[in-house]
Protein backbone atom coordinates (compact mmCIF):
# COMPACT_ATOMS: atom_id res chain seq x y z
CA UNK A 1 0.00 0.00 0.00
CA UNK A 2 1.47 3.35 -1.03
CA UNK A 3 1.23 5.07 2.37
CA UNK A 4 2.89 2.29 4.31
CA UNK A 5 6.12 2.93 6.12
CA UNK A 6 8.73 0.49 4.89
CA UNK A 7 11.60 -1.02 6.85
CA UNK A 8 14.18 -3.01 4.94
CA UNK A 9 16.83 -5.15 6.57
CA UNK A 10 19.28 -7.76 5.32
CA UNK A 11 20.86 -10.03 7.89
CA UNK A 12 22.95 -13.19 7.88
CA UNK A 13 20.76 -16.28 7.85
CA UNK A 14 21.81 -17.34 11.32
CA UNK A 15 19.68 -18.20 14.32
CA UNK A 16 21.85 -15.80 16.31
CA UNK A 17 20.30 -12.91 14.38
CA UNK A 18 16.75 -14.02 15.11
CA UNK A 19 16.39 -11.79 18.18
CA UNK A 20 17.58 -8.76 16.23
CA UNK A 21 14.95 -9.42 13.57
CA UNK A 22 12.27 -9.90 16.23
CA UNK A 23 13.17 -6.59 17.85
CA UNK A 24 12.67 -4.85 14.52
CA UNK A 25 9.33 -6.59 14.04
CA UNK A 26 8.22 -5.69 17.57
CA UNK A 27 9.05 -2.02 17.14
CA UNK A 28 7.36 -2.04 13.77
CA UNK A 29 4.19 -3.45 15.34
CA UNK A 30 4.16 -0.53 17.78
CA UNK A 31 4.07 1.89 14.85
CA UNK A 32 0.99 0.37 13.22
CA UNK A 33 -1.75 2.96 13.14
CA UNK A 34 0.41 5.82 14.31
CA UNK A 35 -0.24 8.88 12.20
CA UNK A 36 2.01 11.82 11.60
CA UNK A 37 5.31 10.24 12.55
CA UNK A 38 7.65 13.19 12.10
CA UNK A 39 11.37 13.45 11.74
CA UNK A 40 13.02 14.35 15.00
CA UNK A 41 9.93 13.62 17.09
CA UNK A 42 10.83 12.54 20.60
CA UNK A 43 10.16 8.91 21.42
CA UNK A 44 6.92 8.34 23.27
CA UNK A 45 8.41 5.64 25.51
CA UNK A 46 11.38 5.52 27.74
CA UNK A 47 13.76 2.68 27.09
CA UNK A 48 13.19 0.01 29.67
CA UNK A 49 16.31 -0.61 31.69
CA UNK A 50 17.19 -3.42 33.98
CA UNK A 51 18.92 -3.13 37.29
CA UNK A 52 22.30 -2.53 35.69
CA UNK A 53 20.97 0.30 33.54
CA UNK A 54 21.14 -1.82 30.38
CA UNK A 55 18.17 -2.06 28.00
CA UNK A 56 15.71 -4.71 29.11
CA UNK A 57 16.40 -7.80 27.01
CA UNK A 58 13.00 -9.34 27.74
CA UNK A 59 10.31 -9.38 25.12
CA UNK A 60 7.21 -7.64 26.43
CA UNK A 61 4.50 -9.40 24.44
CA UNK A 62 1.39 -8.67 26.48
CA UNK A 63 -0.04 -6.82 23.47
CA UNK A 64 -1.99 -9.49 21.60
CA UNK A 65 -1.48 -8.05 18.11
CA UNK A 66 2.28 -7.86 18.57
CA UNK A 67 2.51 -11.24 20.29
CA UNK A 68 0.66 -13.00 17.51
CA UNK A 69 2.63 -11.38 14.71
CA UNK A 70 5.96 -11.96 16.45
CA UNK A 71 5.02 -15.60 17.01
CA UNK A 72 4.29 -16.08 13.33
CA UNK A 73 7.39 -14.23 12.20
CA UNK A 74 9.61 -16.13 14.61
CA UNK A 75 8.42 -19.51 13.39
CA UNK A 76 8.99 -18.64 9.74
CA UNK A 77 12.36 -17.03 10.38
CA UNK A 78 13.60 -19.99 12.43
CA UNK A 79 12.96 -22.37 9.55
CA UNK A 80 15.26 -20.47 7.23
CA UNK A 81 18.65 -20.99 8.90
CA UNK A 82 17.61 -24.40 10.25
CA UNK A 83 16.11 -25.89 7.10
CA UNK A 84 16.47 -23.66 4.06
CA UNK A 85 20.17 -23.03 4.56
CA UNK A 86 21.05 -26.29 6.28
CA UNK A 87 24.56 -27.28 5.22
CA UNK A 88 24.98 -24.10 3.22
CA UNK A 89 27.24 -21.17 3.99
CA UNK A 90 26.89 -17.42 3.70
CA UNK A 91 23.14 -17.30 3.44
CA UNK A 92 21.23 -14.07 3.90
CA UNK A 93 17.70 -13.18 4.82
CA UNK A 94 16.05 -10.07 3.40
CA UNK A 95 13.25 -8.53 5.41
CA UNK A 96 10.82 -5.95 4.15
CA UNK A 97 8.30 -4.75 6.67
CA UNK A 98 5.32 -2.62 5.63
CA UNK A 99 3.72 -0.67 8.45
CA UNK A 100 0.26 0.61 7.66
CA UNK A 101 -2.65 2.32 9.34
CA UNK A 102 -4.38 -0.94 10.11
CA UNK A 103 -1.94 -3.68 9.22
CA UNK A 104 1.61 -4.89 9.20
CA UNK A 105 3.18 -7.18 6.66
CA UNK A 106 6.59 -8.80 6.59
CA UNK A 107 8.20 -10.25 3.52
CA UNK A 108 11.02 -12.68 4.19
CA UNK A 109 13.24 -13.65 1.29
CA UNK A 110 15.95 -16.29 1.21
CA UNK A 111 17.93 -18.18 -1.40
CA UNK A 112 18.09 -21.48 0.44
CA UNK A 113 16.24 -24.69 -0.30
CA UNK A 114 12.59 -24.42 -1.11
CA UNK A 115 9.94 -26.88 -0.02
CA UNK A 116 6.33 -27.90 -0.64
CA UNK A 117 4.27 -26.07 1.94
CA UNK A 118 1.16 -27.99 0.96
CA UNK A 119 2.84 -31.20 2.11
CA UNK A 120 3.30 -29.97 5.69
CA UNK A 121 0.81 -31.88 7.87
CA UNK A 122 -1.09 -30.46 10.80
CA UNK A 123 0.58 -31.26 14.11
CA UNK A 124 -0.82 -34.18 16.05
CA UNK A 125 -1.76 -34.14 19.72
CA UNK A 126 1.23 -33.30 21.91
CA UNK A 127 3.61 -32.78 19.00
CA UNK A 128 7.36 -32.58 19.47
CA UNK A 129 7.94 -31.05 16.05
CA UNK A 130 6.35 -29.76 12.88
CA UNK A 131 4.28 -27.07 14.57
CA UNK A 132 5.89 -23.96 13.19
CA UNK A 133 3.90 -23.36 10.05
CA UNK A 134 0.63 -24.22 11.78
CA UNK A 135 1.42 -21.66 14.49
CA UNK A 136 2.40 -19.03 11.94
CA UNK A 137 -0.68 -19.57 9.80
CA UNK A 138 -2.96 -19.34 12.83
CA UNK A 139 -1.46 -16.13 14.15
CA UNK A 140 -1.77 -13.95 11.06
CA UNK A 141 -4.52 -13.11 8.59
CA UNK A 142 -2.51 -13.97 5.50
CA UNK A 143 0.47 -16.27 5.07
CA UNK A 144 1.92 -16.88 1.62
CA UNK A 145 4.94 -18.82 0.48
CA UNK A 146 6.39 -18.73 -3.00
CA UNK A 147 9.17 -21.24 -3.63
CA UNK A 148 12.09 -19.87 -5.58
CA UNK A 149 14.82 -19.16 -5.83
CA UNK A 150 14.46 -16.83 -4.16
CA UNK A 151 11.94 -18.19 -1.68
CA UNK A 152 9.46 -15.58 -0.54
CA UNK A 153 7.30 -15.57 2.56
CA UNK A 154 4.73 -12.89 3.22
CA UNK A 155 2.90 -12.52 6.51
CA UNK A 156 0.13 -9.95 6.97
CA UNK A 157 -1.91 -9.10 10.02
CA UNK A 158 -4.71 -6.57 10.34
CA UNK A 159 -5.48 -4.68 13.49
CA UNK A 160 -9.17 -5.32 13.00
CA UNK A 161 -9.61 -8.81 11.63
CA UNK A 162 -12.45 -9.55 9.20
CA UNK A 163 -15.69 -10.46 10.98
CA UNK A 164 -15.30 -14.18 10.24
CA UNK A 165 -11.91 -14.53 11.87
CA UNK A 166 -10.56 -13.95 15.34
CA UNK A 167 -7.09 -14.10 16.81
CA UNK A 168 -6.08 -16.69 19.40
CA UNK A 169 -5.37 -13.94 21.91
Amino acid at each position, binding site marked *: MPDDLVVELTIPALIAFRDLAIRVVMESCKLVGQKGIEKGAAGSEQTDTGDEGMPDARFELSDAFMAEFVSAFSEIYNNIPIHAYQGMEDGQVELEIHIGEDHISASIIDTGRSFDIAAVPLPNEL*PTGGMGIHIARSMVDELAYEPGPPNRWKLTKYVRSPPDSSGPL
Partner: protein
Amino acid sequence: MFSGKLDVLTAPEVAPIIETLVAEKRRKVIVDLAGLDLIDSSGVAAIVGLYKRVRAAGGEVIVTGARDQPLAIFKLLRMDKVFGL
Protein backbone atom coordinates in the same frame (compact mmCIF):
# COMPACT_ATOMS: atom_id res chain seq x y z
CA MET B 1 10.62 -22.48 36.52
CA PHE B 2 11.09 -21.00 33.07
CA SER B 3 11.49 -17.27 32.54
CA GLY B 4 12.13 -15.00 29.60
CA LYS B 5 12.17 -17.01 26.41
CA LEU B 6 11.90 -20.73 25.72
CA ASP B 7 12.66 -20.93 22.06
CA VAL B 8 14.98 -22.30 19.42
CA LEU B 9 17.93 -20.56 21.10
CA THR B 10 17.23 -21.43 24.73
CA ALA B 11 15.46 -24.80 24.46
CA PRO B 12 18.76 -26.69 23.97
CA GLU B 13 19.95 -25.29 27.31
CA VAL B 14 16.99 -26.96 28.99
CA ALA B 15 17.72 -30.40 27.54
CA PRO B 16 20.27 -31.42 30.23
CA ILE B 17 17.82 -30.41 32.96
CA ILE B 18 15.12 -32.54 31.39
CA GLU B 19 17.51 -35.46 31.10
CA THR B 20 18.31 -35.16 34.81
CA LEU B 21 14.65 -35.04 35.82
CA VAL B 22 13.88 -38.10 33.75
CA ALA B 23 16.93 -39.99 35.01
CA GLU B 24 15.97 -39.24 38.60
CA LYS B 25 12.51 -40.70 37.94
CA ARG B 26 10.83 -37.77 39.65
CA ARG B 27 7.29 -38.63 40.76
CA LYS B 28 6.11 -35.05 40.33
CA VAL B 29 7.50 -32.26 38.17
CA ILE B 30 6.03 -28.76 38.31
CA VAL B 31 6.69 -26.58 35.28
CA ASP B 32 6.10 -22.96 36.27
CA LEU B 33 5.71 -20.72 33.23
CA ALA B 34 4.69 -17.54 35.07
CA GLY B 35 7.92 -15.82 34.11
CA LEU B 36 7.84 -16.93 30.49
CA ASP B 37 7.34 -14.13 27.96
CA LEU B 38 7.88 -15.95 24.69
CA ILE B 39 7.68 -19.53 23.52
CA ASP B 40 8.05 -20.94 20.05
CA SER B 41 7.62 -24.41 18.59
CA SER B 42 11.05 -25.46 19.89
CA GLY B 43 10.07 -24.46 23.39
CA VAL B 44 6.77 -26.28 23.11
CA ALA B 45 8.61 -29.37 21.90
CA ALA B 46 10.88 -29.22 24.96
CA ILE B 47 7.94 -29.08 27.36
CA VAL B 48 6.03 -31.79 25.52
CA GLY B 49 9.14 -33.95 25.53
CA LEU B 50 9.49 -33.49 29.27
CA TYR B 51 5.80 -34.25 29.78
CA LYS B 52 5.87 -37.43 27.75
CA ARG B 53 9.08 -38.80 29.23
CA VAL B 54 8.23 -38.13 32.88
CA ARG B 55 4.78 -39.66 32.42
CA ALA B 56 6.26 -42.64 30.59
CA ALA B 57 8.41 -43.22 33.67
CA GLY B 58 5.33 -43.13 35.89
CA GLY B 59 5.62 -39.57 37.06
CA GLU B 60 3.25 -36.61 37.00
CA VAL B 61 3.83 -33.28 35.27
CA ILE B 62 1.98 -30.14 36.30
CA VAL B 63 2.24 -27.13 34.01
CA THR B 64 1.20 -23.86 35.57
CA GLY B 65 1.38 -20.09 35.22
CA ALA B 66 1.23 -19.74 31.43
CA ARG B 67 0.06 -16.30 30.30
CA ASP B 68 -0.05 -14.00 27.26
CA GLN B 69 1.81 -15.32 24.22
CA PRO B 70 2.83 -18.70 25.69
CA LEU B 71 -0.75 -19.38 26.80
CA ALA B 72 -2.04 -18.44 23.35
CA ILE B 73 0.36 -20.91 21.77
CA PHE B 74 -0.73 -23.72 24.10
CA LYS B 75 -4.38 -22.97 23.38
CA LEU B 76 -3.74 -22.96 19.64
CA LEU B 77 -2.13 -26.38 19.90
CA ARG B 78 -4.92 -27.57 22.22
CA MET B 79 -2.45 -28.30 24.95
CA ASP B 80 -4.20 -26.06 27.44
CA LYS B 81 -6.67 -28.82 28.14
CA VAL B 82 -3.96 -31.48 28.36
CA PHE B 83 -1.93 -29.35 30.76
CA GLY B 84 -4.91 -27.94 32.62
CA LEU B 85 -4.01 -24.32 31.86
